[in-house]
């Protein structure tokens, strides 16, 4: 649903989008224009509502994690934490074990790190919210794309190195159109059965 996806991304929070459209309505002056805007606002409102109904909210991560500082300051690479990228279908979200390798004790004064240390102390997994999800009926394998297809992470996940905030929305939405256009571009099969299962 490209329309919904777009409006969700542009609007930041859903509420903001709603407000923005409303303010544009009050600004207009001429009556005919106003009625037109009225109608379009109602339409947009309906779309917003539809948007809110059909889409999930952005994910809020338990810890404000910065990819940037981990990559630039700590010098990690993606595969250091997302370890199964080259071996499994799933890239894996790092578990506590991975975090503990470095964060066995405090490395900084960041309050966010303190949160992590709390998890470490409790030996409780950090409840990361998974952001990138392919639907159940699609077979997607990181291994195939990374090892056989030699794709860089950025191609699908965007410039994650520069992220100072945790990932809350897919940078490039997981849609069939996106998959297929990339496949088309790289002359890879677009046979349904190669991904659908």
């Amino acid at each position: 649903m490209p329309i919904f996806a777009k409006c969700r991304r542009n609007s930041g929070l859903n509420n903001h989008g709603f407000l923005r459209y409303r303010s544009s309505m009050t600004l207009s002056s001429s009556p005919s224009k106003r009625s037109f805007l009225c109608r379009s606002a109602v339409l947009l409102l309906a779309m917003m509502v539809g948007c809110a109904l059909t889409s999930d909210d952005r994910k809020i991560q338990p810890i404000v994690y910065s990819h940037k500082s981990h990559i630039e300051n700590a010098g990690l690479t993606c595969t250091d934490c997302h370890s199964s990228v080259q071996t499994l279908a799933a890239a894996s979200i790092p578990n506590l074990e991975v975090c503990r390798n470095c964060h066995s004790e405090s490395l900084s004064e960041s309050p966010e790190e303190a949160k992590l240390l709390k998890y470490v102390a409790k030996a409780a997994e950090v409840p990361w919210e998974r952001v990138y999800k392919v639907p159940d009926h699609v077979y997607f394998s990181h291994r195939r794309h990374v090892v056989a297809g030699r794709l860089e992470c950025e191609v699908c996940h965007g410039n994650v190195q520069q992220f100072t905030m945790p990932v809350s929305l897919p940078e490039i939405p997981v849609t069939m159109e996106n998959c297929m256009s990339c496949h088309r571009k790289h002359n890879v099969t677009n046979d349904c059965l190669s991904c659908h299962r």
Partner: protein
Amino acid sequence: MPKWAMVIDLDRCTGCGACNVACKMENNVPIVDPDEAQNGRAMFWMDMVATYEGEFPHTEAKHVPKPCFHCDDPPCTKVCPVGATYRNPEGLVGQIYHRCIGCRYCMAACPFTAKVYNWYDPKWIDGAQVANPDVSQRMVGVVEKCSFCAHRLQKVKETADVEGREIQENEYVPACMENCPADAIVFGDIDNRNSKVSRLSRSYRVFRYMDDLGVKPKVYYLARRTSS
């Protein structure tokens, strides 16, 4: 490009039904309610057609395992209004559940009654993945059928790709063949003349169902022999 085909040796097949269950387990084929099953809604991708021939005491029972025949000229794909069922370049007739609108035209058009329909929402475990996570769970109102375990091909291809080689014989094997206690099912690339499936498909015993329809099924049967 390989062309996948299957040979079922009716001489070896005992009709035990292992292929039926292996298929159901592998592909998360729903179990339906008892009454529904009795009303002709039992779902089997790999079916077993059991018939009696002749009159007592010269009765002969015949057991024929019946998957989707993955015709080379499939009558079902021709009629699908949305392309939810189609023949892919490797000869697999795929069924894309999320494209399917549930008109059941393909079921009506299939001369082999190979397709089954989700009359209700299938139930497995609430919320969790069904038994086999490699195969998606279908939803109410779509047609489904034997896929020659195409999800296994996805994985086999991936491994072959990653290792930079061709797919080996017997690397891609559907669940029914894998578990057949009688080794009656052979599967492979029929275009490769050295493959077992190609060799058997040229056997003097070979026959296909409804061959006269010209739909070119890719499931070959080897007729039974008796030593009397």
